[in-house]
């Protein structure tokens, strides 16, 4: 899989001033936190609570932003917008996309982490 289509490693690292150690920390934290953050999004949608959906998506957006994963970031932004607008019907397919793209990012980050460990 071409990781660069999922997130921009070089750019994400540059944002951290090239601090690989910090990047590794953030990846580990993201792998712990993002499933919980997505679960909150999915639960809000299941309850058809648009306002909670918006704030849960906003929170997920905060963590995704750190990795320069533009496709996923756009989807999450879209989901937040739909939640804010109360368009729950339109939100369902976007939520499915977010779930898929988030899994891709998590896998890509795990792979990067393993590469880093092998290098080390």
């Amino acid at each position: 899989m071409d990781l660069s289509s999922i997130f921009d490693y070089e750019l994400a690292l540059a944002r951290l001033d090239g601090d690989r150690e910090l990047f590794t920390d953030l990846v580990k934290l993201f792998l712990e936190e993002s499933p919980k953050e997505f679960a909150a999004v999915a639960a809000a949608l299941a309850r058809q609570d648009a306002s909670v959906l918006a704030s849960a998506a906003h929170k997920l957006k905060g963590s995704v932003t750190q990795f320069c994963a533009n496709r996923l970031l756009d989807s999450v932004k879209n989901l937040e917008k739909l939640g804010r607008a109360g368009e729950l019907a339109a939100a369902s397919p976007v939520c499915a996309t977010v779930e898929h793209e988030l899994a891709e990012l998590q896998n890509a980050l795990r792979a990067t982490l393993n590469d880093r460990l092998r290098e080390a």
Partner: protein
Amino acid sequence: MAIPLPPSQAGVSSSASGPSRSGTSILLIDDEPVARRSLAGRLTKMGYRVLEAVDGVDGLAAIRREHPDLIIVDWMMPQMDGPTLCERLRSDPELATSQVIMMTSHDQPEQIAEGLARGADDFLSKAASKQEIVARVQAGLRTHALVRQLERTRDDLDCSNRALVGKQRVLDEDLASSARFVHSLLPEPGAPAPGASMAWRYLPSLTLGGDLFGVAKWGEEHLGLYMLDASGHGVSAALRAAAMVTFLHPDNLARVVGGHDPVAIVTEANRRFPMTADGDYFTLWVGALHLPTWRLRSVSAGHGGAFLSVPGRPTTWLSQSNLPLGFDPEAGYVALEQDMPPGARIYLLSDGVYETMSPDRELWGRERLQQVVEARAGESIEQVIDACFEASRAWQRADHFTDDAAMVGLERNREASIVKREQ
């Protein structure tokens, strides 16, 4: 609670590349852990001491506890959001000058306007580059340092002011104590000699006055009277006036002048009290009343304030066109002589009593004072003096005299009252 950071990210930075900013603390308030850790890691690497809080409530507690130099707060948070936290800070006098940067995910102009209105100092995009973070953080810290400096200056001023007030209290007490001493030099009202009555009022313009007067027995046969005015006001004038009072003490006069003749006294005073380096000098009026004959000899050195008031006769001012003391060491003096029949009064007064100005700058003057005294010739000395003070105050439309105001009255009692007292 604020989350303690792992050693690599919390506390004093050991980063070799970062400048030494370990004393500078930044509080980061964000509910999203990954974004918070990301910014905390970068700030720590820059050398700042980073504190973290998970929402507005937690953040407010950390601010009260830690007084961070800079606060970076996320806009959207559960419990208490960024703008609400800002409002809480601005309404708390202890925390109102905190520097707050608010994080926004998109720079919508209306969001910036709302954030500013609710108390944010600056904004930082969540996608900000390292350069932008450095610039905004440094700007926030610069402002914080300036505010701190102002607060310290204000506290220093408060402290100096308290010290000055304390010193002033000591000086005031000193002045009050000196004033009590000067007051103790003034004569006791009542009967300074058989057949005579005396009363006075004295209002120094400051706590200490440069005008003093005396009425005392000079030897067996004389009653000495004087009114002096040391130029200037306050402590210096009072000290010089007290020195002159000491010179005019009967024991001293007996020793250095060898008698009670006003001409000899004023001549000696002129010799002993030359004008000071600061240009200060005295005016003096001295009278010696020979009690067996009630004959008054007087000399004035530049002092205009004594007059004789005899029933059925016009008022006689006992002033002479002599220079004040200390102007000319060779100055010569000639005495004026008057008789004091029963019921006659002599009034001594400082120019502060009659040199009062009306609001449209017209002088009250000696003539108006004389009219008050003549109109009240039948009243007691106290009543006449009080009436003069009241009329002068009414003229200047103010209670406080701008110059020392002193007035003394001495009466030769009518025969009837002597007889009455001797019964």
